[in-house]
């Protein structure tokens, strides 16, 4: 149904408010985990497609139903592409850089399943947003 008023827009916004809280502050009303993969040209050139495939495969292999792997644009960390953000409800959002297929698997097995960070690939968030 087409959006015809600010109220219609607000409804869609509220329906999706969960992702804003989760991605910005790590808060969520449910248990859904999100993994965001930087899939702009630069990320893809550095191998983000393989990273994405590897993440999805690990998620499937472990039958993890509450994880969404989502393609996003780039966050500007060209020096560390491909980049991956892990948003676990209740945890601060975490950004990894230089995530190849192997590190992608590690993110699932170490970070998500065992709550261990992969230190060598951690990036610091270095900006504030409007």
């Amino acid at each position: 149904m087409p959006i015809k008023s600010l109220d219609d827009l607000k409804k869609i916004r509220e329906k999706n408010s969960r992702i804003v809280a989760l991605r910005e502050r790590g808060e969520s009303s449910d248990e859904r985990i999100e993994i965001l993969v930087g899939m702009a040209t630069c990320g893809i050139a550095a191998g983000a497609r393989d990273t994405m495939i590897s993440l999805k495969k690990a998620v499937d292999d472990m039958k993890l139903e509450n994880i969404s792997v989502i393609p996003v644009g780039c966050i500007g960390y060209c020096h560390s592409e491909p980049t991956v953000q892990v948003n676990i409800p209740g945890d601060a959002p975490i950004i990894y850089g230089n995530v190849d297929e192997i590190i992608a698997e590690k993110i699932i097995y170490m970070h998500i399943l065992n709550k261990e960070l992969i230190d060598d690939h951690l990036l610091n968030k270095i900006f504030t947003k409007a």
Partner: protein
Amino acid sequence: MYYTVLELTQENVEGGRNLKNAKGKFVDLDTKKLDREKIDELDEYIDSLEDQKGSLIHILHKGQSLFGYLPENLQIYISRKIDIPAAKVNGVVSFYSFFTQEPRGKHTISICMGTACFVNGSDKIFNELKRELNVENNKMTEDGLFTLKDIRCVGACGLAPVVMVDDQVYGHVKVSDVSEIIKKYREED
């Protein structure tokens, strides 16, 4: 329908009117030699456009994606189809760097000549590619395997200098990596 087109080379100019010694190339303007199926697809695309003359650039994009390049007879065909002088069509084709009038090799090797790659030494990689392939920029190798092309920034500045073979990106390329990369594709054939 063949025409000889004289290239504006030093020799030809100095040679004056003595055309016997002039160097040129044969240009085939026979539109009947174009692949019928591809032309049908192009026709269909052109017919679907509202403003055909204003969409010349889009039509050329379509043509190039169908034929791989824009040979002279295709340019003639398009000019007749949308009723624009062929010289104008050629003027547009030659103006934009995305369009090519030369056939392409099986693989296109692109070297990024954006500034970030340049300051990281892409000019040296480029020279090495030319040497290794024995080919000039925008030309096809004799065996038809490769076309070498310099391109503007691909936006992978974090990987500079960057070489692309078709869609495959090679980052942080060193002069000594060049022969290795080419060898891989030569061996595939």
